[in-house]
């Protein structure tokens, strides 16, 4: 207890030095939290934009579908399977899909397209498909109509209420052919989706492909989107080995890779920041050691064990670094929340590019609590590692040499 009291008093023996050290840590934590929150926020937004438009955070397939995406790798949809999926508390919604390719024709033009059979209401709950309608109406369960992506419609020179002809290969080699009215036109940010996607009610798609009762995937939405891996694991365990359960990272690995590359680049920037923190803290520690060398020699001379002296120095460092960290985190919370509620808006051509790809042209911050804690702990660990230096010097202290003037 007396060590704690002495450490506290020592901390304030040179008020300016302590305040400068704490201020260095305070600003370092704010900067560190702000940059990492912004980075995570941008990535979260990117993932949200990409994943929620189409892929979903987790998908369930028949085992082997991801490697060979053909109708023969579809599986039977059942309420029981859906129920098993929904048993995971993190799953907020599930929708079935039947996906395959077909040729779409209108008059003289034929193009390849992705035909997606959906449950209109459930799909809308997960991907907000209804919001992407730019002309016409959303489809219903029993419609014999389709929603056509705007890009594809333009390539086929089609408009609302025109009729398309679909030809393809159905389930187990059956011939698939059908004629459908365009009930609505959709606009996707992703050129990939916008130029070759067509949606129809699930039952209509099953009929077209002769895949009655079959689906190729269940698309899942999650409450906590940060932990798709653990949810995928639980769902996989519940469904058994006949199914594969994949996260968005596995479904669209290029986005995951992009985030990974950007994250490691950002780590270098953060590394430089941490280095600056190191120099700030270490400088004051060195000054403190020089200033108190004589006194430390005297303390050991009169009978203070070196382990106690080391503990005293450690407590002083921990208190200084901890105070800086706590104040820094406290100050960064409103800052990060503000930029989460009022994200930085991108302007100019960059904003247009973002919008063209269907992304919101904003840089929001992430308010994930782990970010604050992580950055606080990193700075605290830096402080603790640096405080090993005065502890080492105390361990090696020769009282006679230390007290020599």
């Amino acid at each position, binding site marked *: 207890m*007396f060590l704690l009291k*002495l450490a506290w*008093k*020592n901390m*304030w*023996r040179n008020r300016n030095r302590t305040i400068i050290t704490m201020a260095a840590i305070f600003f370092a934590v704010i900067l560190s939290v702000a940059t990492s929150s912004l980075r995570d926020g941008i990535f979260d937004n990117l993932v949200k934009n990409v994943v929620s438009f189409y892929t979903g955070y987790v998908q369930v397939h028949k085992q082997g579908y991801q490697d060979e995406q053909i109708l023969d790798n579809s599986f039977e949809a059942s309420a029981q399977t859906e129920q098993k999926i929904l048993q995971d508390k993190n799953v907020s919604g599930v929708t079935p899909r039947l996906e395959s390719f077909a040729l779409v024709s209108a008059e003289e033009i034929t193009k390849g397209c992705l035909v997606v059979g959906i449950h209109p209401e459930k799909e809308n709950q997960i991907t907000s498909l209804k919001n992407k309608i730019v002309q016409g109406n959303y489809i219903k369960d029993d419609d014999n109509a389709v929603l056509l992506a705007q890009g594809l419609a333009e390539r086929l020179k089609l408009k609302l209420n025109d009729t398309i002809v679909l030809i393809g290969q159905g389930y187990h080699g059956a011939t698939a052919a059908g004629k459908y009215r365009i009930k609505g036109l959709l606009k996707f940010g992703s050129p990939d989706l916008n130029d070759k996607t067509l949606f129809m009610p699930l039952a209509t798609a099953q009929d077209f492909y002769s895949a009655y009762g079959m689906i190729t995937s269940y698309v899942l939405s999650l409450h906590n989107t940060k932990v798709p891996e653990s949810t995928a694991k639980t769902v996989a365990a519940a469904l058994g080995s006949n199914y594969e359960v994949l996260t968005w990272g596995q479904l669209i690995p290029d986005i995951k890779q992009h985030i990974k590359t950007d994250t490691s680049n950002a780590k270098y920037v953060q590394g430089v920041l941490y280095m600056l923190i190191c120099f700030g803290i270490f400088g004051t520690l060195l000054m403190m050691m020089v200033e108190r060398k*004589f*006194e430390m020699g*005297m*303390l*050991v*001379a*009169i*009978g*203070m*064990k*070196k382990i*106690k002296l080391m503990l005293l120095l450690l407590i002083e460092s921990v208190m200084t670094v901890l105070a800086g960290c706590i104040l820094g985190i406290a100050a960064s919370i409103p800052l990060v929340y503000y930029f989460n509620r009022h994200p930085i808006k991108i302007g100019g051509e960059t904003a247009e590019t973002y919008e063209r790809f269907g992304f919101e042209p904003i840089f929001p911050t992430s308010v994930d609590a782990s970010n604050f804690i992580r950055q606080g702990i990193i700075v605290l660990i830096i402080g603790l590692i640096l405080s090993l230096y005065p502890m080492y010097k105390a361990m090696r202290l020769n*009282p*006679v040499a230390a*007290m020599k*003037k």
Partner: protein
Amino acid sequence: MPGLSSLRGETERGAAVIDAHNISKVYNSKTIPVYAVNNVHLHLERGEFTALVGPSGSGKTTLLNMIGGLDKPDEGNIIINGVDITKLSANELIDFRLRNIGFVFQSFNLIPVLTAKENVEFIMQLQKMNREERNKRVIKLFKEIGLEDKLNVRPSKLSGGQQQRVAVARALASKPQFILADEPTANLDSASASNLLDIMALLNKEENITFLFSTHDQRVIDRARRVITLVDGRIAKDTAEVNTNILHTSLSETN
């Protein structure tokens, strides 16, 4: 002064407190050996009030550091209260110092962030003395050094003489066997030095506390009952031996 009896140590009056045998300390031993202390024998009994004098570089502080267990001799043994401190590990030495030796330094060396009371209490806290006993002892010690009204004052608010008196109280706080004082009056004016020496002399007389000073100060030398003169690391003169020789001579003449 009241309360001095409570400060009595464990060694009986007249018993050896310090026994240094053939101690030497060599510097630059790899090139030309320079003896800071050269084959010194020293025997101090409880209750002595001894001054270690000599020119600068004569080895006073080195000898004092070795006796205080702050430095180890290259040769010889130092036995304090029956314990050969040259055989103790660094950690054991720290503990030994805490329980047996009081230090008073030239530049006071009080902890600036603690009050006078806390500075004295600090040693007792290291000794894990309970709060009640600490408080009693602190009050007695401050009465003895005449600073009862300065208990809660920080060192920076005390004069040099007052700081050195607090340093003496701190040295006594651990109930040591003896006190080593390195130039304790060097930074004090005459009145403060005289006052400090009065307190030390009284503690020595009434409490039988052993004092060993390293000093240049004639005021200390005048008060000392024994003066050891070091020259080039050797004892050139020891008044205790002179007195013994005079005693032997007068005895043989009588016979």
